[in-house]
């Protein structure tokens, strides 16, 4: 007998080949069985989901995606339409979505980063602590330090320049946004004076660092 649900995996996504005639209830049950039994196999990857073999309404698609994420450790990032050039399409859809996520979602990191420590995040990051000289924070999105920034902060590590670096006390060694680099001035590199909250952003080919104010926040573009 032909299986009601077949799973085809690609590098960046999963294609569900569905039985065209089975009632939706039974189909959902079949999807559930399928993913429960192979939970280990799929792991906790971020994937894009595509359907084949059956016309589905948006509600039905969401229902199936819900069953998939409930019964596996997969992180369903997006649902994509059936497309001739599936592999390319899935890859692009996943990349776009992840890029979007990196600047528009964030994580917290609690603790002080010391000399030689590096943290690297796919998303924006909020550090609850200081970033000491010699430490490095890398993020594909923005970086907020709720403490003092003395070390290096690299925002937009995926290439995005619509990101920012903010800190309550801004004395960084270097700030990078996308592929631009700004370094501290030589004259006051050793004096660790309190600066008050400041924000660094990219505009017209330069990185600017300004006190946080209504005006400076107006200059920030996130997409």
């Amino acid at each position: 007998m032909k299986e009601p649900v077949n799973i085809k995996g690609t590098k960046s996504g999963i294609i569900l080949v569905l039985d065209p005639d089975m009632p939706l209830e039974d189909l959902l049950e079949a999807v559930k069985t399928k993913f429960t039994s192979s939970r280990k196999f799929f792991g906790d990857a971020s994937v894009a989901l595509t359907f084949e073999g059956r016309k589905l309404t948006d509600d039905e698609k969401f229902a199936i995606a819900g069953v998939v994420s409930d019964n596996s450790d997969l992180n369903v990032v997006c649902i994509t339409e059936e497309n001739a050039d599936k592999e390319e399409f899935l890859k692009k859809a996943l990349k776009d979505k992840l890029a979007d996520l990196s600047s528009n979602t964030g994580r917290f990191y609690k603790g002080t980063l010391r000399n030689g420590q590096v943290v690297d995040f796919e998303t924006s990051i909020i550090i609850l602590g200081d970033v000491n000289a010699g430490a490095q924070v890398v993020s594909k999105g923005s970086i907020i330090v709720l403490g003092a920034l003395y070390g290096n902060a690299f925002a937009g590590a995926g290439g995005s320049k619509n990101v920012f670096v903010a800190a309550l006390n801004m004395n960084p060694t270097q700030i990078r946004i996308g592929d631009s680099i700004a370094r501290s001035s030589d004259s006051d590199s050793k004096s660790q004076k309190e600066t008050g909250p400041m924000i660094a952003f990219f505009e017209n080919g330069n990185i600017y660092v300004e006190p946080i104010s209504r005006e400076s926040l107006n200059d920030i573009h996130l997409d």
Partner: protein
Amino acid sequence: MGEVIVITSGKGGVGKTTTTANLGTGLAQMGKSVVLIDTDIGLRNLDVVMGLENRIVYNLVDVIEGTCRINQALIKDKRNPSLYLLPSAQTKDKSAVSPEQMRKLAEELKEKFDYILMDCPAGIEQGFQNAIAGATRALVVTTPEVSAIRDADRIIGLLDAAEMDRTDLIVNRLRADMVKKEEMMSSNDVVEVLGINLIGVVPDDENIVISTNKGEPLVGSDTLAGKAYMNICRRILGEEVPMLDLYRKDGFMSKLVSKFKKKELK
């Protein structure tokens, strides 16, 4: 063809990095092209002492691993256009580099620079082996303390085993007042124990602390330590330079002046 000199000591905190920074700067001031290599992977300092930390993009490990070209990692000094720094990596450890790779790197840099100074990490493990790999000449730094001398002696043995062409001694942080009172070993006492050529004596000088914190080597300045380092540079170039008189009796005037200077610092 340039010369590769390793600055080493065995013991930590005796002034290897300060010495490297000052000798490199001094040689550059005398018109030589110089590159300083910080081989202390994981605990880099030379960039801070040179005041170049904020310019680091690539480092020694990036060069060795082929992530970038040598020229991309070399940082030009703020004041001396013929002086460059190859900083160490902070997030790796000593095993990221092998002696063979360091030897190759040194060979390559020899083509372009008169002097390549290797700032060696403390210890006798892989970091030390990496630092001495490409060198043909060594400067052993010690303070006039028994523990530092003991470690220097061990290092000299290892340098001999590595068939270094030439090994000279720098006695650092000598306090003439204490030597006079026979509370500290004199440089001659140290030479007597270690039995290698003394190339310079650097007095204990509070200006060193100031210069290190500022990130501006004081070689060539009108301080005792600045003069002592410049003299060592001239001796490295082969000049005959008499040893600085660290024991001269302070006259009434100079005592007065130094008192005023101290007040200003406070």
